């Protein structure tokens, strides 16, 4: 990677399908019995800038509560943005009303995390998958049924099960129903909000492969959210890492996994599960101290400085901008004042808790 000296102007301008600029979503906290007044807000997403290029899969990782799902719902305009600009296929969606938003929904669909909660258990599968066609008046009666059964076949469901209820399907099959529903309108972009994290591991692969197949067949673009790093590595072309409502690092998947620049990305990657026990034992774990700070009152400057092993005085005062670190490809952006250099080991110290356990074991009478 180092020998590639990027010249930003030489790269062809990527064909951006979805552009999010400084997306902010704050949820107000209200108090009071009769007259509610705002006493604060949860800063779930606090200034996220991202672009999703046509035909790619952009992975979005981060731990629970970092705002991944909120960002997905912002992109889908499931609730109004606090501020920021959202451009989809050239159209500005950031302030459209729900009814004005409707035509654009044909171009963007969502697959939900929970294959149980996201399907209405009182409606038949055929009517669930046909819902988008009915809402957008795309097909009626026999034609709708034919299209729905075609979709069921595409996602690997038996079209004969048109009249069944969601409860009669397994988790993996239900997620296929969700995929079929998202495909019905032939969208350009599908936002996948942890589409496999609720599924059995053996089923996860099936759904991921299905999504890959569909991408090549229909030329889909995915915004793929997950907290499983292995899954993201497998499906993504590029990956964005989120921490506490901010994107801290964006890069091509190979760059990110090979040379993570942000200390948080390093910590996150070191926490991923390795299937080989020998490798797992020999690798260095970076165990961060403390908990994720509250998004109600996030730290000043760089949000990670309270837990960062490399934090310095500058980090608590000045917020780092997303920029390409020295020697990185132009597409590799890091929001850090002191990015991790090649060969630098953050995990030289074992975590205190591990030391304590080892000390306890050494002292224990045998």
């Amino acid at each position: 990677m180092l020998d590639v000296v990027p010249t930003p102007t030489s790269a062809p301008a990527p064909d951006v399908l979805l552009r999010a600029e400084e997306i902010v979503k704050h949820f107000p906290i209200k108090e009071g019995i009769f007259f509610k007044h705002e006493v604060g807000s949860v800063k779930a997403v606090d200034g996220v800038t991202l672009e999703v290029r046509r035909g790619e899969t952009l992975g979005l990782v981060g731990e629970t509560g970092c705002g991944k799902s909120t960002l997905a719902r912002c992109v889908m305009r499931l609730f109004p943005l606090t501020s920021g600009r959202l451009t989809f296929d050239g159209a500005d969606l950031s302030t459209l009303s729900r009814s004005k938003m409707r035509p654009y929904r044909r171009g963007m669909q969502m697959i939900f995390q929970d294959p149980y909660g996201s399907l209405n258990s009182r409606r038949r599968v055929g009517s669930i998958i046909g819902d988008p066609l009915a809402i957008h008046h795309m097909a009626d009666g026999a034609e709708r049924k034919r299209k729905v059964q075609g979709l069921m076949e595409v996602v690997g469901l038996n079209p004969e099960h048109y009249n069944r209820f969601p409860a009669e399907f397994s988790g993996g099959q239900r997620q296929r129903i969700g995929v079929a529903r998202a495909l019905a309108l032939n969208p350009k972009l599908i936002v996948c909000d942890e589409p496999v994290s609720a599924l059995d591991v053996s089923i996860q692969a099936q759904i991921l492969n299905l999504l890959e197949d569909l991408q090549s067949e229909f030329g889909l673009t995915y915004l793929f959210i997950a907290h499983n790093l292995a899954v993201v590595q497998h499906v993504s072309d590029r990956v964005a890492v989120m921490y506490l409502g901010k994107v801290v690092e964006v890069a091509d998947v190979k760059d990110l996994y090979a040379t993570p620049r942000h200390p948080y990305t390093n910590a996150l990657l070191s926490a991923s599960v390795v299937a080989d026990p020998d490798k797992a034992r020999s690798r260095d774990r970076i165990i961060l101290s403390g908990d994720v700070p509250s998004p109600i009152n996030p730290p000043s400057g760089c949000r990670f400085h309270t837990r960062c092993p490399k934090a310095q005085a500058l980090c608590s005062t000045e917020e780092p901008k997303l920029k390409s670190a020295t020697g990185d490809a132009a597409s590799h952006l890091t929001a850090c004042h002191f990015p991790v250099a090649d060969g630098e080991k953050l995990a030289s110290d074992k975590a205190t808790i591990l030391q304590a356990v080892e000390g306890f074991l050494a002292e224990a009478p045998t």
Partner: protein
Amino acid sequence: MSLSTVQVASNQAPPQEPAVGGIEGRSPLRLVLARLRTDRVALASVAVIVFVVALAFVAPLIESITGHSATITNVDTGTDANGQPLPPGTGGFILGTDNLGRDILVRIAYGARISLLVGVLATAIATIVGVVVGLFAGYFGGWLDSILARIMDVVLSFPYVLFAIVLVSVFGSSLPLTILVIAFFSFAAIGRIVRGQALSQREKEYVEAAQSLGAGNLRIMFVDILPNLVAPVIVLATLLIPSAIIFEATLSFLGLGVQPPTASWGNMLSDAEGVGFQAWWFYIFPMLFLLATTLAFNLLGDAVRDALDPRTERIFAGRRKKKKPA
């Protein structure tokens, strides 16, 4: 995970399924009916209700067979030599006659029409209004919910008999007014339950999914959320019918509902006021029908609730106990 395994993986699902053709999901309705069929109390209640409905339907037939009108007094045959009402089984009057010599059987049959009409119609209106008001309040929340929920609270805390007396004295009593008054005082019971359910349903992910598809609020409320509320609404509606019947009987008893000479179980009981023990058939038969009908609807409502939610223990509790080794 190359594409070759992909194909295998994604194409595996259909062949694993059992032989196709004619496989169709059992709808919740069919499951409920199947459970109801095993419930003896429910079957008995249905039998009573069917009997009362049949009685209401054949009322004109009974009238023509017996030759006794429900409203016109039978001056010659309906009373004995002293002008006293006939006890049951005498002079061709199976259930006897009242003090005006009218056939109690015929009047009960016509009264069943009134009771069922009022019960079903008032419940239907109350259910529709309650569902709409409850859905709007629960789904939209905010100030709309505050207003609608307060209105329902006010309605539920109203002294309804006094209100009915005032209304009748202003507008004069009539059957439509009776039905509307009953519906007005019943809708809040359904509306509150629907509101609560809608409040919890609107947070479900399937609502979000519908929004992401571009569904409008009305579609989400009535196509997505409402089917999930069918169970409590059916139970409540079934339980509202008997209370509407009793409400009508109460109003008619007080002279505020169905006006004589039209027969209603309530005003038949009102006629029996002060008769005492001599002419027991005056009040026993209307009372029995009122009791049997309301009890049947109530028991059916309970049975439907148990059938809709098999987790409730009521019906099957006894059966389970038997299985336990002593």
